[in-house]
């Protein structure tokens, strides 16, 4: 059972977090807190695996809580916030994932799942030691210690979050202060824009589905679904057809066909 501590200073927001997380199998809500100070106290007492918290909180804010706990019990941190009007370029926090308010239940679930994967990674000691990526194309993520690089191939998808973008990999997400347009300049053709608020790495796409309302979604490995904007559809079709020809022969080409939901 994965043990989760939920923290938000607004009662309604906290209730929502509890409602979503309590329904997840193999996940247990071990406690809640309504301010930064109590969050630290509870975390030290309960030692949760995952800490879900908001940034704007009384006494200590989310960033301060995470930084205190990162030197102690080191839970996986999922940040939930409106992400509106923060001046910082590098969030002084190394969260596993970032979820936008207003909350979408599936995003929060994916964040918890990502945190669980990370826990498993750490437990199996398979975390890659920071090594030089050499000539592999990579994306630079600024952080308080100067920054680190993420291989483009590891990026699953990129999501817009007000003044920031969230770069999702399998076991970690990174927050960068950037616009989508600025991001587009850095990304290779394998990671095209599919929506006003999303880029997707086609190498991680398993299939795409169409709802009866005419909404197209790309389903990635691990189950995350990203909506496709109408103006990006035709380019995406071409790109997917091209990437099909790049598949190694052992892959089943049927997987990239259109499924009607």
């Amino acid at each position, binding site marked *: 059972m994965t043990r989760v501590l939920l923290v938000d200073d*607004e009662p309604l927001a906290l209730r929502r977090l509890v409602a979503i997380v309590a329904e997840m199998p193999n996940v247990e809500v071990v406690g809640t807190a309504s301010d930064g100070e109590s969050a630290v106290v509870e975390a030290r007492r309960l030692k949760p695996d995952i800490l879900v918290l908001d940034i704007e909180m009384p006494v200590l804010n989310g960033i301060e809580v995470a930084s205190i706990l990162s030197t102690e019990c080191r839970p996986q941190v999922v940040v939930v916030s409106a992400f509106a009007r923060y001046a910082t370029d590098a969030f002084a926090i190394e969260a596993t994932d970032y979820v936008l308010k*207003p909350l979408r239940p599936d995003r929060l679930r994916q964040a918890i799942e990502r945190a669980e994967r990370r826990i498993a990674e750490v437990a199996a000691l398979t975390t890659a030691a920071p090594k030089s990526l050499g000539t592999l194309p990579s994306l630079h993520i600024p952080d308080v210690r100067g920054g680190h690089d993420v291989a483009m191939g590891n990026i699953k998808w990129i999501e817009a979050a007000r003044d920031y973008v969230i770069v999702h990999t399998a076991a970690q997400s990174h927050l960068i202060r950037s616009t989508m347009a600025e991001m587009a300049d850095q990304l290779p053709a394998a990671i095209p824009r599919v929506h006003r608020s999303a880029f997707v790495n086609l190498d991680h796409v398993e299939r795409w589905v169409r709802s009866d309302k005419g909404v197209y979604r790309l389903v990635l490995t691990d189950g995350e679904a990203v909506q496709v904007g109408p103006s990006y559809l035709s380019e995406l079709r071409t790109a997917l057809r091209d990437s099909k020809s790049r598949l190694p022969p052992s892959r089943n080409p049927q997987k990239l066909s259109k499924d009607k939901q």
Partner: protein
Amino acid sequence: MQYLERAKPQHLICGLWAANAILGMALSLVPPAESEVALKLVKTSLCGLGLSFAVTALTERALVLPRRQSLTVLVLTIIASGTLIWIADTLFQTLTIPGGWTLSAFTTRRYNWVYFNLLFGLQVIVIALIFSTRALALRQKQLVEAQLAALRFQVNPHFLFNTLNAISTLVSERDGDAAEEMIAKLAEFLSVTLAENLTSLVPLRKELETIQAYLEIETVRFGDRLKVRYACDKSASDVLVPSLILQPLVENAVKFAVAPSKGGAVVTITATVVEKELIITVQDTATLAIDTVRKYVGAGVGLRNVGQRLEAQYGQPGLLETRKNERGFLATVRIPCGQILRRSET
């Protein structure tokens, strides 16, 4: 009107004196014609031109003075310059005549004094019109800029997204009534903040309703941590105020007294009329002492904006005062009661 905004005063001055010279020359053609008269007229006009620049500068300075002083300076300027040029003109006309420079030379030309005063008077009026029009246009531009800046602070993304989050919680908990209530309040608030005409004045009563809608939403978000009190005189409710002038003050109270405090805060809003002035106060009182220094990141901008809007609207600086007191933070707005909504206009 537009010409007045763009006219260059120097061109007008030159034009005026050129006209004077031409008029004089035309008159000199009437018998008995004398070319010397024409020459003297040109000399006079040149003097007039020189004096005019001084007059223009003085007029510009005088216009920023309070009304009485401004009028005095302008009249003195006209008389001084009119007299100076009259003396010069008379001298030009009489110097060449032997024994011509006598007192009687001046007295016979006394109507010229009137003429020159009228000439300078005309110049002063035209210059004053030009400068006033420009000042008005500038003030209007500043008013619009202040209001556009105000727009940015009125739709607070943080407030909006957290409110939508709260509504989605109510929906997921099947509390349809509470959700509808919150949606209605949000719509009411947004209908004012997203209004077409933000330059409008509204009766205080309406402004308070908008603030109330905003605070009721925040009360749902913060629960017991936000308590609001209102104390408004009946006589105050019809006074016209700029739309959403109180919004940044109330937002600051929530951001800096309610949100960072575990026990929350009480926000008190009062409105009274004292000697033809509407006085509105927004006081926040945190129930637990906040030890950390109140970080005014962002508060300064919102407050500055309110001050700018008030100054642009009413022409006086200092209508917004803020200070910390022993209870917390107090913001005071003073609005002249010149405009009161009449019953029939409601």
